[in-house]
């Protein structure tokens, strides 16, 4: 099959934009993201309304599950990685606005040149011997997480001809309940690649899509050291009410 052009994909994106108003999560069948075609269920999901469901509780993590060094992606090797040093911080909340405390946040990202330290990344951009791009931390009592890293570069992929991903950091989050599990991507403000990217545009509600973009926060920037970005995360899904706060 001949690969689609950006014009083809952009036309499909435009046709679906604004559909699913008010819905945050992408349609798993979103066709402009070609890999979704054979990987989404055709049948509707079965809705579970059992207030005692096992899924209303979830895994817990503790001080032994992360180390100090895991939050600083610039200090995992003997030298400093290349790129714009940055900090990214924010709060993890449930949909009632309560902080998600003591839970695991995992991130992974490309290096400043847009290359992952992953064997299957064939992008001919340089690897950085001083950057792996993996971090994790546990949220504090306010639900706050914080990482020091470098700004990832955009990278090409094979969804269609001349497809480029906007710069992003992958995030994996746990809530108090397994139902609140979230894997997502954080983007950087003002990236010119936004309109061309079928993964970001799979969120067809404009306001919801904007929530994937971090804010540059000058007060978080450290003089002569790093630039600061703020990104708050709200986990969807119910949790059991009988689980103690701050467990």
């Amino acid at each position, binding site marked *: 099959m001949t690969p689609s052009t950006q014009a083809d994909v952009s036309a499909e994106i435009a046709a679906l934009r604004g559909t699913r108003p008010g819905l945050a999560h992408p349609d798993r069948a979103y066709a402009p993201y070609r890999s979704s075609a054979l990987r989404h269920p055709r049948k509707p999901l079965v809705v579970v309304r059992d207030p005692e469901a096992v899924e209303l509780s979830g895994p*817990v993590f503790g001080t032994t599950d992360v180390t100090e060094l895991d939050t600083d992606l610039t200090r995992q090797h003997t030298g400093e990685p290349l790129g714009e040093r940055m900090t990214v911080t924010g709060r993890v909340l449930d949909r009632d606005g309560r902080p998600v405390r003591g839970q695991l946040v995992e991130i992974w990202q490309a290096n400043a040149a847009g290359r992952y330290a992953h064997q299957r990344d064939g992008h001919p951009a340089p690897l950085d011997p001083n950057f792996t791009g993996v971090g994790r931390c546990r949220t504090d009592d306010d639900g706050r997480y914080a990482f020091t890293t470098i700004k990832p570069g955009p990278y090409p992929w094979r969804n269609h001809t001349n497809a480029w991903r906007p710069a992003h950091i992958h995030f994996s989050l746990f809530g108090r309940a397994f139902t609140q599990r979230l894997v997502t991507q954080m983007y950087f403000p003002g990236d010119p690649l936004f309109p061309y990217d079928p993964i970001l545009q799979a969120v067809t509600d404009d306001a919801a899509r904007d929530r994937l973009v971090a804010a540059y926060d000058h007060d978080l920037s450290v003089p002569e050291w790093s630039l600061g970005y703020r990104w708050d995360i709200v986990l969807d899904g119910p949790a059991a009410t009988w689980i103690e706060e701050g467990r």
Partner: protein
Amino acid sequence: MGTLPPTPSQTVGPFYGYALPFPGGEELAPAGHPGTITVRGTVYDGAGAPVPDALVEVWQAGPDGSLAGAPGSLRRDPVTGAVAGRHGIDFTGFARSATDAAGHWFVRTLPPAPHRSGAVPHLAVCVFARGLLHHLYTRIHLPEHATALSTDPLFAALPPNRRATLVAAEERPGTYRFDIHLQAGASEETVFLAFP
């Protein structure tokens, strides 16, 4: 309730493999525990091809029925940062298995007990994959609970031809198969769940 709009999901993509899987992620049961069972399977796409870049997570009650879990699934050495692994004393209830090149995943665990009397125990499953924009939940029931399961309201409400997708098959004593069909025809597609 539900006052804040949620952060949208995005696909896990193809490159989580050096970030999310961790050594011993599949080994939920303490090493050498005589009650250990293996649950394994293949993740398939809509063409019936194995999915080599999926991630399967399991959350379950312990053998005592507790849903409290325990920290330490990813226990690390604070000196070297290396993964020290579960210490095997507490049952963390959480496992993570990335599919291999043949789309195969597995967990070695202890059978969950009911979290309350009358509950049908199961392994809660969350599936991520490249190409999947939003994770999917399903449940693994062991065949020995099939009779109790038939009275479970969720299970009873399903068309009979779809119920089997939620029950693991015993391959040999202690080893169960649970394939996950992200997309398939009338009866093969796995039943996936939503928690509103």
